[in-house]
Structures are given as C-alpha cells and as structure tokens.
C-alpha cells in the first residue's frame, strides 16, 4: 500500500502498541538547550534516574547567551542557567557544545550542520522550532520539559498517531520571493491553527527546487501554522547536503544510507488526511502587520480593515492586534517606519540568508534612524561568513556583527527592542512583547529586512534587485 513518509517513519519507530493507548515511539536524537532542560535533569536526580542514551543526546547553549562580551554574562540568573546546563551535561555524560565551543550555535542550525539531523530519524527538543529538522525528511517536533525528562530517562515518548496533511506549493517562486515569504503566505492563507493535530508534508515543484537551507526556513515555521512537525521528503538535494558531514557515514556506507533515505519519500498515490495547496504566483514578498504570524500580507498591500472579516472574533482580534501595533486600518504596509532590524534566528540565520541580505546592503548605508544587527545562526556560519567577507559588507553599511545565539528573536538575553519601537525581523514570531515588552515586530525575509534597514520603513525589496531577463 502506498504510504506517506510520515507513516513510514512512524511505523519504524513504534516500540509498543496497544488498542486504546498512544504508541510508544523511539526517539533517535534528543537536542537540548539551557532553558527547557534544568527542571528535567532535576527530576531525574530527585528520582534517582539516569539518562538512558546520552549518546543520542546533544546539547548547546543558545537562548540566553550574550551576543557580545561573551565571557561576561551580567544577568546572574542567566549565568546560573548556563552553568546548570554545563553541570548537568557533565553529570549525565551528555555531549555539549558550550558557550565557547567552535560548534556552538542555535540548536536547530547546528543539528543539520553537524550531520546529526538525518532523514528518517525521530528528533525532539524542548523547543517548538524543532520542526526545522523536518526539512531533511525527519520526524521532528517540539516537546515540553516533562517530555524532555521522559526522553532522557526512557528514550521514548507516548504519542497518538497524528493526522497527515499535504501542503502543496504549485509552480515556481517569482522574482524576489523567498522561502520565508512562502511560509508566511501559507500561514496567512490557511490560518494560524491550520496544522493543529496534523503533521504537514510540503510537496510540489517549488519545494523540489528549494535548497536545504530554504527548506529549513519553511519547516521551521510549521509550528506557526499549529503543526508540531512539518517535513519534506528527501531527494538528491538532501543527500548532497549531508554528504561529507560529521556524524554521517562515509564511502559505501553513505551510499547505502542514501538509498535507504530516498526510499522514505512519500509513495506515489499515498493518501493524506487533508490536502491544501497554494500557487507560487499568489506569493509576493511578505510582511506581518499583526501580533501572530498569520497576520501578514504582500508588501504592496494595506493593513486590513474590520470590514474585511465576517466573524466577530476575527474583527476583535484585528482590533486588539492593531491597538498593540499602533497601526491604522487600511494604511499601506510600505508606510510603516521601523527603528530596528534583526537578521538572525533559527528561521533565517544560515549562510545563504546572510549572503542574500548582504547582496542588498552592499555599498548602501543603514538609515540613520535604524539600529541593525546581524546574529549568525552558529559559530560555523559566522566563520564561513567572515571567510567570504560578509561581516565587512554588513559593518561597512552600519550593521552590527554579533556572536551567535537566539538573541533578539525572543530577547531572553540583553538584545531587545525597546517599548514603542518597531523591528523588521527575520525571526518567526511577532507575538506581543516577543522582542521586548511593548516592542512591535514585523516578520520578513532577510532581503526584505536588509531593504527596510536602508530605507527606515518596510519596503519592497524587488526595487533593489535586478529582474532576470526571461529567456525566449
């Protein structure tokens, strides 16, 4: 019978099943960070339990770490949380890329870089953006701290069989349209809870033509559509990304693995519980104007009006969002001034993101009323970018070039947007106060962020690009 990749991975990981119970699922890779793990390790200690498979765990510090003056964490509680992870990893034998380690970075950036993320694996982390790893055809989802403790202790989780959803992206992306615009457009079209109770698989011609880094951007924001996991069937692009990485086999063993990975792809004719589709022609460079990621539109459009909605609860939500965002119904999106630009996060801080933004900013200057920072996704990304001179391009334009970490995506460290100010941000959430109490976030792609940095307001990046001449 034809099966989806979701069903195939699931079946391969069932340890125990019984009618009327969720399945007991084996977990192949457990990623950890400093914020959602301390209570889990403490739980193990209190109950005299061990970590069952430290060799299947990998930890790093990302949420809390400073992006300058790395060695002096001024906040004593942050310092304690980071020290606690170090101590827990030492005590339980969990591999750690600590704050000064050359592999350190945002957990969802380093997993793929190190080749830990592989097709067919079940991957969990106490972080909702674990869906990022789905780009490789892995079943990857965020969990809470109780589940972190459960996986540490048993290497398994009780999980009810999910429903499957195909998210089809027809056609090819237009001029100036990026992976970020695709996922923002999908969430805007189908709603913030479109994926609740589902695992989504992205399919279609547009997806096949995306690089691995672009696929990661799309899968990363599956959770913003309510889906715990979103994935893409592996293909030759996946294989070539993984070839030669640390933690993947070499030589013939790699070719064998590659064949096994390719066989995981969804079979022709497999059935999903639901299918939605969007045509690439519908998607233009996107910005959000509201307080959740579904509240966005193409840059050429306007902030919606209450009259655009039928349901009273949608009208109320619009009103609440605009009150928080200090925006008026019907105003053009390109008229919104910004004071901050953040290029970073597990959504958009990989090398290709920094390259794309640097192309726009090259030879230009950051607008005098804007503070702009680049926070590379990992030490590896940072080194590679510096090798290419990208840091110099950003610095010459007036950007700050920082150390790696989650930084201003959630502002747990000292990088935050002050109350009443606006940020064009390449991150994934525009919730109230996300980047600092009273701050206002507009989610955009890296190139849109770069263009906003130059002009001091949201703007169409296509004006900074040369449209390729169509071949006849």
């Amino acid at each position, binding site marked *: 019978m034809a099966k989806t990749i979701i069903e195939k991975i699931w079946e391969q990981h069932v340890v125990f099943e019984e009618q009327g119970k969720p399945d007991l699922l084996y977990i192949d890779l457990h990623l950890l960070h400093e914020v959602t793990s301390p209570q889990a390790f403490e739980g193990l200690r209190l109950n005299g339990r061990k970590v069952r498979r430290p060799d299947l765990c990998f930890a790093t510090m990302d949420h809390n770490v400073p992006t300058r003056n790395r060695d002096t964490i001024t906040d004593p509680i942050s310092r304690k*949380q980071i020290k606690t992870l170090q101590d827990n990893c030492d005590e339980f034998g969990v591999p750690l890329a600590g704050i000064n380690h050359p592999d350190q970075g945002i957990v969802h950036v380093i997993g793929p870089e190190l080749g830990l993320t592989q097709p067919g694996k079940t991957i969990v982390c106490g972080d909702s953006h674990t869906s990022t790893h789905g780009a490789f055809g892995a079943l990857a989802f965020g969990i809470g701290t109780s589940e972190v403790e459960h996986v540490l202790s048993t290497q398994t989780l009780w999980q009810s069989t999910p429903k499957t959803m195909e998210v089809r992206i027809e056609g090819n992306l237009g001029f100036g349209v990026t992976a970020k615009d695709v996922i923002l457009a999908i969430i805007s079209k189908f709603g913030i809870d479109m994926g609740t109770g589902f695992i989504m698989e992205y399919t279609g011609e547009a997806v096949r033509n995306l690089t691995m880094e672009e696929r990661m951007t799309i899968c990363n924001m599956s959770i913003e559509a309510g889906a715990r996991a979103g994935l893409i069937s592996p293909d030759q692009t996946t294989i070539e990304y993984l070839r030669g990485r640390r933690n993947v086999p070499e030589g013939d063993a790699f070719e064998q693995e590659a064949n096994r990975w390719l066989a995981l792809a969804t079979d022709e004719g497999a059935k999903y519980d639901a299918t939605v589709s969007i045509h690439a022609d519908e998607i233009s460079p996107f910005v959000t104007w509201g307080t959740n990621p579904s509240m966005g539109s193409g840059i050429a459009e306007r902030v919606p009006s209450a009259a655009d909605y039928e349901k009273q609860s949608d009208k109320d939500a619009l009103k609440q969002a605009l009150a928080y965002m200090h925006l008026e119904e019907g105003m053009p999106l390109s008229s919104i001034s910004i004071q901050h630009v953040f290029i970073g996060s597990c959504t958009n801080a990989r090398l290709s993101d920094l390259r794309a933004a640097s192309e726009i900013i090259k030879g230009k200057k950051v607008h005098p009323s804007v503070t702009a920072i680049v926070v590379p996704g990992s030490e590896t990304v940072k080194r590679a970018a510096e090798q290419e001179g990208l840091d110099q391009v950003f610095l010459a334009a007036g950007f700050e070039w920082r150390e790696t970490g989650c930084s201003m995506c959630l*502002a747990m460290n000292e990088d935050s947007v002050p109350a009443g100010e606006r940020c064009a941000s390449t991150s994934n959430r525009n919730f109230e106060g996300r980047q600092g109490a009273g701050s206002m976030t507009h989610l955009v792609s890296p190139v849109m962020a770069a263009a906003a940095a130059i002009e001091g307001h949201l703007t169409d990046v296509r004006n900074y690009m040369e449209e390729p001449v169509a071949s006849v």
Partner: protein
Amino acid sequence: MKPINKISSVLTPLERKNVDTDQIISKEFLKRIERTGFGKYLFYHWRFHADGTPIEDFVLNNPRFENSEILVAQENFGCGSSREHAPWAILDYGFRVVIAPSYADIFYNNCVKNGILPIRLKDQEVDELISKGQQQNFKLEINLEDQSVTGQDGTRYEFEIDPYWKEMLLKGWDEIALTVQYDSYIAAYEEKQRA
C-alpha cells in the same frame, strides 16, 4: 502529579483567541531552574503596567475571580512556544482546569503532564460560558470521570478526552514510572537497531 477529578469553582472568562504561551508566561521569567513560583508572572504584561501597577480592566485583576480554578478562553489557546513554564504558571496561580474550543498540541500535552485538565467544548458553548462569567459570578462543576461540565443554572456540557490522558489525570500518574514497565520492549527495540 496531583490527581484531578471533580472541581467546583467560579469560572474566569478570558475573551481572546490565539492566546500564545509568550503571553501566558513572558520570556524574562523563563530563567528560573525550578518548576514552581511562576504563578505571580502569569499573563504578566496583560496584568501589570510597566511600573508594576495592576491594569484595572484585565480579568485576573478583578477580585470576583480571585479564587477561581477554571479559566475559559477562545480557540487555539496556548499556541507558539513549547515552554512548559506556561502550564506551570497556570497551575501555580491556582487554575486546575482550562476550557477552550481548541488548544495548540504541545500546550495540551504539557497541561496533561502537570495535572491540568484541558477541556474542549464547542465554540458556541465557550462563548456562552464567557458571556455568563462576565455578567455574574458563574460557578461550574467539572467532573472528569463523567466527562461533564455543569453550570450553576443547570446547563450541562459533555466533553471528549483521550482515555489514556483521562486515566493519567484521574490517577495522577508519574508517566516515567509507567514507561519503565515497558523497559523490555525498549531494550528489544534497541537490540534490533544494533543488529
């Protein structure tokens, strides 16, 4: 985990949809390494002005709801971040039951694992409860065993819950202790992987 079956309390109406976990517990409070003590930070930026004074018209600042154990909100409650600090804050504040038309998946799991009962009712039923709770002190009797919610005016609603989660909540299980009983299956699976 504390078992839960019957709860009788006034409901607290929170008339908002898509309430994300960043609102439930803001990031500046995630640095604690304990599971307790988060209640005073629940909905912090909706409850307090920047200077720390209460925002009068926010529902949690209304003394009518001071001892409420039941929070009622609109659809897609608990979306966004996986932070379990959100249910920890809800529980520590004093709520044992949440009622909404729908929940984000991770948040729902996190509730169950902490002895919070997340009840799904229909959109219209939730709107009714919110409206009643806004007009007057409105008491609900929750019965997990029967899977029912009964209002003080006699209105009765039934809800669905996965039998596994139901039993876990009723008995207050330690899920890890339960899973350890399946150790031989886990070991056999690992053995097969190595082969």
